[in-house]
Every structure is written in C-alpha cells, then in structure tokens.
C-alpha cells in the first residue's frame, strides 16, 4: 500500500525508473508508486510502451545477417579444420 505521505513520482523520474520497472527490480513500494503514476499519465504510458517496443524491435535484429558467400566461407573453414583433425 502506498503511504499517504509518499510523494508522487514525476514524469522526469518515471523515465529514469522505466528500465528497473521492466527488469522488475523496483521495490514493491516503488512499483506501486510507478503504477499509480502510469495509471494517471497517458504520456508516460506511451513512453513505457515505446520502451517495450524498442526492446522488442532490437530483438528482431537477430535474423538474416550472414550472406551466402560468408556461409560458404565459414563452411570451408569448418571442413578444413575438421579434415585436419583440429576439431
């Protein structure tokens, strides 16, 4: 429960806490204060969603990065090492 005396977070604080919020490393009290702010503030809700989207988009960079020519090159390195008994 949030103490009646707990000061409300301001937006400028929310943007510094958002990573800890997403990593789930806030204390229960901090989390409750964070949630209370987010419930009232559409701009910070948008900011939080954008941070989630940013993380999700970064995750998509995993795909499709190795050209066919490089696949062949790596395959050749592997075959050479395997045939020379290095593996």
């Amino acid at each position, binding site marked *: 429960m949030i103490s009646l005396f707990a000061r409300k977070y*301001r*937006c*400028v*604080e929310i*943007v*510094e806490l*958002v*990573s*800890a919020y997403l*990593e789930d*490393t806030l204390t229960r009290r901090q989390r409750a204060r964070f949630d209370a702010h987010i419930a009232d503030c559409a*701009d*910070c809700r*948008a*900011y939080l*969603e*954008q*941070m989630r*989207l*940013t*993380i999700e*988009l*970064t*995750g*998509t*960079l*995993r*795909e499709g*990065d*190795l050209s066919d020519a*490089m*696949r062949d*090159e*790596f*395959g050749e*390195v*592997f*075959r050479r*090492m*395997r045939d020379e008994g*290095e*593996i």
Partner: protein
Amino acid sequence: MFIEPTSVPVMFAGPAGAPFADSDAALVAQVREGSERAFVELVARHHGAMRRIARSYVPSDAVAEEVVQETWIAVLRGLKDFRGEAAFKTWLFSILVNRARSIGTRERRSSPHEDPHAVDPGRFGADGMWSRPPERWEDAVDERLDAAALGSTLDAALEKLPPRQREVLVLRDVEDLTSAEVSEVLGISEGNQRVLLHRGRSRLRNELERSLAA
C-alpha cells in the same frame, strides 16, 4: 568419410506445432560430431550480434569480420574442452570480447558519466512533468515501414549509441543473455550493466522517435 546426419533436422515442431530452432546446445553437439550444417547455422544465428560487438572495438567492418572469424576458429579448437556447464553463448561472447579488446583501440572516454539523462531534461517543465511529451512513432512501425526499412532505421539508431551501451544492449536484447551473463562476458558489475542498459535503451528510443515520428 563424414556423412551429414540427415536424421537430425535443424527445425522441428514445437509442442504447439510451431517450428522452433534447435538450441545452441543441440547444435554444438552436432558440431562436435562433425556437422558442417550445424556449425554454419550456429554462426548465422549469432553473426549479427558478434559483428556489432566486435565493431564497437575495432576501426572497420573488415576487421570486425576478421575478429568474428577468429573467434569461431578459437571456438572450434576449444570445443573439445568445453564442458557445457557455462552457457555456450557466455563462452562464445567472452572469447569474442577478449579478442576484440586485444586488437581494438576503442577510446575509453565514453564513460558512464556522459549523457546521464534518459530523456533531454528540456522536455520537462519546472514541475517535472512532460512539457514536450513523447512523440508517437509506434504507428510507423506497424503501418508505414516494411521490415527492411525498419531494420536499417534500427541499425542506424544502434550505431549512434556509445559503444559500451551498444554492446550491453546487443547482448541483452539481441542475444537474450541474462544480466549476470552480460556482466561476466564484459567483466563489469551488474550495477554498471544496469546503468548502461538503461541509458542504451533510453537513447535508442530517443533515436527511433527522432527518425520515425511523423
């Protein structure tokens, strides 16, 4: 003569019927048995992250590719002794970072002291509330951009991050390493890792806002 094990497919159906790729551990086991296909699959899977991390230490793309290739040669040589107790990814990226650092000339001036704000303080009023709120760029991702355009926007944004932030971001958000694994690979404290991750993600959001907001 070595025969590719055709009985062990790279993809198989998951419990829900959706295909999912072999785990790194499964691929490593196949590589140990001499499977070239499994090796190339493993290389492809981590290439983007390895190249980006190597690039943050060395002066050119060509040198970064060399570091990546040398890393895989070291991995293949070391595979006999790799016990698989540590996650393969942690081992792989530790080798990469050590090699990149040993030949790299990255300037150390990008310290955690720079850019201490997640968002430009000028965007908040004296009361600490937004005066210039986040611009909405989420729709551009869904509607305006195809995957290729989005990929290059994202890459350009990532390139603008300070190298230390970028490597933490790549290890956490591209490679899905845990915070403890990232700390181990980079030899930094978890506290430092958290700060770099926070600044990197915040800065990346800013860059996306700048390039995507209509």
